[in-house]
């Protein structure tokens, strides 16, 4: 079963509209909360007039910093807001929550929110990047060796804009209290992240907070943190004694629910005449939104990609009057790889060496910054297979060498790598009298296919069809499993599912041999393919449980965190693409794509392919379309899905994906590494390289829009 293409187990409820997302939650008597947000980017609130809102039909309460719901300070860093909403009057960014209106209906709450007015003591917001800053600070991230000067030198700077996750589902939370127990239906990349956050800010024992997040409409990092609507809905519900539902508008999602920071990388490389790198220096600059703490270690990808005796990366953080910057698909790597993969292409051109060849000459057989061996690395095979399948050898050496009518045609390639790790996870497997098995853990399925991974692995271990496994995710009362982030869900949870599915067989055997109603009472038995047998007698576990009149047997299995200081762990891949640029309009279009991935064991070929394709397409957006603009008032001006361009059907060519499927036995018995983020790493670099090959124009500033190609 493992590695075969399996239909998603949550497919049917999703194509019929039956899958419940947070905003679909129906609770009798539910009220609606709507956020009032700041209309300046920096300063202090001096007053708010809520009288008209309070007098508006259906309004139950209006909370503001002058009439706040008490929330305790956040303790844990969750890559989200630094301060709980409405607890102070400082304005850190445009679109910050300054009020929460609760009314009987959504329309009433929204209408009343429009009646709230605020006065400010305003200061000019800081938005230039890099440039005039409030408190820029530099830290040296890591130095290996001393910087030397080789025969050849290359230096260039690369910049990337603000970007947004744009998961299709806007952030939504529904909260309801029963005495001192809170139940929260919310969007999240991990139910336990919500539980912990709410426990600290509400001052409530985590055991009394039940978080449910069974289906999440995409995350990409934007639902790792808990944004203002989460604590406000819960606190307002407690204060009013009524359930409260709060959904962010798309514009609010843009303003307050995290973004990819702006970055600049200055790369300086030296190499010998035959193209062996002797040093790489990458000085990275990243913005940080003052709404949060998080910033990107954008230069760090340089530490682990190519062999070089000397490596130095730095990080300078530029705080800006914006909402929190946060993790977005391959944080650090997506932007970091754009610079290094572009630079490698530029260096290859300077040396007159083929770009694939240059990468092979600098192949890192050991982890470049630690000198440790890799747990498993088949990147060279990705390059070779990709080059062969793509027809790379036919590529003209010269730029601007191929035209097809009015279209200039070019090809480019890039390396992808993303860190792998295995955390601790516990999973429960329960066998039921109806012959089904349920598998539960607090894990989240954001569309990644985690439900199906649970079903496949449990079915495989129990020897029953996938259709008889019922995975149960996104419930904080389940055993603690991995949150969906850092591409380590399958790698972490997968082995735990296997352990639990084994352990439950032991429980079943104990029942079979010790329950007086069991036909196997006192006998030697074995378990195989969903049945217990002894001598000539075989009985399915469902029948056995029914015969014994037992409601089920269960076991919790825990797979420990992998602590292995001896190895470096990463997934690898190589992208190859063809880009066409219109000779007259400069319009760039990606017309062909191949990604070859080395991500360990692939559990579900169907879902894995889609994950890589989706990541590549997000990378095409990053390369050609996506940028959030900020005006002088510190407002994201294109905060909607019409002006913030994400790729659509008509923008995308066929995306070919190959998996090498070499198991990585060092990371786990299952041998799976991550695939959620790997696919986006290197995409923008490959496209920039192909654009250069097509046109001779090197664009070092994303996105590569037509104005830069004219």
């Amino acid at each position: 079963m493992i590695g075969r293409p399996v239909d998603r187990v949550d497919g049917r409820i999703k194509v019929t509209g039956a899958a419940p997302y947070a905003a679909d939650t129906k609770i009798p008597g539910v009220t609606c909360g709507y956020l009032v947000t700041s209309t300046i980017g920096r300063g202090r609130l001096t007053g708010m007039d809520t009288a008209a809102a309070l007098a508006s039909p259906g309004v139950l309460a209006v909370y503001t910093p002058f009439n706040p719901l008490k929330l305790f300070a956040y303790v844990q860093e969750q890559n989200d807001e630094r301060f709980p909403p409405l607890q102070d009057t400082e304005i850190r960014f445009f679109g910050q929550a300054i009020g929460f209106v609760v009314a009987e209906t959504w329309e009433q709450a929204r209408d009343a929110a429009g009646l709230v007015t605020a006065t400010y003591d305003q200061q000019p917001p800081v938005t230039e990047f890099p440039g005039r800053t409030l408190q820029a600070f530099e830290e040296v991230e890591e130095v290996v060796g001393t910087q030397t000067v080789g025969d050849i030198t290359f230096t260039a700077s690369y910049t990337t804009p603000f970007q947004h996750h744009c998961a299709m589902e806007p952030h939504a939370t529904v909260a309801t209290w029963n005495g001192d127990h809170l139940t929260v239906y919310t969007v999240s990349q991990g139910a336990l992240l919500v539980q912990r956050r709410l426990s600290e800010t509400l001052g409530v024992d985590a055991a009394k907070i039940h978080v449910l997040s069974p289906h999440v409409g995409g995350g990409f990092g934007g639902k790792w943190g808990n944004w203002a609507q989460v604590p406000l809905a819960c606190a307002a519900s407690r204060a009013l004694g009524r359930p409260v539902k709060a959904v962010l508008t798309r514009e609010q999602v843009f303003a307050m629910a995290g973004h990819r920071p702006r970055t600049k990388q200055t790369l300086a490389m030296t190499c010998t005449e035959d193209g062996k790198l002797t040093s790489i220096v990458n000085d990275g600059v990243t913005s940080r939104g003052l709404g949060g703490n998080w910033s990107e270690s954008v230069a760090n990808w340089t530490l682990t990609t190519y062999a070089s005796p000397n490596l130095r990366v730095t990080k300078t953080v530029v705080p800006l009057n914006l909402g929190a910057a946060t993790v977005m698909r391959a944080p650090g790597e997506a932007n970091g790889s754009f610079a290094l993969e572009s630079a490698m292409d530029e260096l290859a051109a300077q040396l007159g060496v083929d770009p694939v060849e240059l990468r092979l000459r600098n192949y890192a057989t050991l982890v470049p910054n630690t000198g440790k061996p890799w747990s498993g690395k088949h990147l060279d095979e990705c390059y070779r297979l990709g080059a062969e399948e793509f027809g790379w050898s036919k590529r003209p050496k010269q730029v601007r060498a191929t035209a097809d009518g009015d279209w200039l045609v070019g090809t480019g390639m890039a390396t992808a790598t993303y860190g792998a790790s295995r955390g601790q996870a516990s999973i429960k497997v329960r066998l039921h009298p109806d012959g089904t098995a349920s598998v539960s853990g607090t894990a989240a399925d954001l569309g990644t296919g985690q439900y199906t991974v649970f079903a496949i692995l449990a079915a495989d271990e129990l020897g029953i069809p996938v259709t008889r496994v019922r995975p149960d995710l996104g419930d904080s009362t389940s055993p603690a499993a991995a949150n969906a982030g850092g591409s380590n869900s399958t790698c972490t949870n997968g082995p735990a599912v296997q352990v639990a599915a084994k352990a439950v067989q032991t429980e079943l055997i104990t029942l079979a041999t010790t329950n007086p109603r069991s036909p196997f009472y006192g006998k030697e038995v074995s378990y195989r393919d969903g049945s217990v047998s002894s001598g000539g007698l075989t009985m399915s576990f469902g029948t056995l449980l029914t015969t014994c009149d037992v409601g089920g047997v269960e076991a919790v299995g825990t797979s420990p965190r992998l602590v292995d200081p001896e190895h470096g762990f990463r997934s690898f891949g190589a992208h190859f693409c063809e880009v066409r640029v219109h000779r007259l309009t400069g319009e760039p279009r990606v017309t062909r794509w191949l990604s070859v991935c080395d991500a360990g064991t692939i559990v579900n070929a169907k879902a894995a392919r889609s994950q890589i394709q989706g990541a590549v397409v997000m990378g095409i957006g990053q390369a050609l379309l996506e940028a959030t603009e900020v005006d002088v008032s510190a407002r994201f001006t294109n905060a909607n899905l019409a002006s913030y361009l994400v790729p659509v059907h008509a923008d995308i060519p066929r995306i070919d994906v190959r998996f090498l499927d070499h198991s990585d036995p060092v990371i786990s018995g299952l041998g799976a590494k991550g695939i959620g983020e790997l696919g986006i790493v290197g995409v923008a670099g490959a496209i920039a390289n192909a654009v250069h090959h097509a046109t001779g124009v090197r664009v070092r500033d994303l996105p590569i829009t037509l104005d830069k190609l004219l």
Partner: protein
Amino acid sequence: MRVNVTVNGEQRQADDVWEGESLLFMLRERLGLPGSKNACEQGECGSCTVYLDNVPVCACLVAAGQAQDRSVRTVEGLAEGDQLDPVQEAFVEAGAVQCGFCTPGLVVQAHDLLDRVPNPSDPEIREALAGNLCRCTGYEKILDAVRLAASRR
């Protein structure tokens, strides 16, 4: 105001509908049909696509009152009992569903495309579905699904 509307073949009535309310809101909040999704509320993403008298519309852009005495078909009304529509089946089989938030709108839009153009070319599919954003799948599998459904209808 009161709105009388046929939804998925059933005569339905919604009371106390506010004049500014959208068809999407009425379906989701008053008529118990949360299948159609609200992702932008301003006609930019297609997640809320439903049939209004057999024409696909963004339900977030249609006022609830405009549906008076008309017929609406949502994603919940495509299957016949337990039997999925071929488009729905193809979406599951082709792996065209990830997070599923775009899916209800896409399924309706693809359903309409195949009603009008039984064997669409790839450019026709890409064009017809260009107004339905999906942030997860990369679109490839959605194309596969539409081709698969076309081959079966």
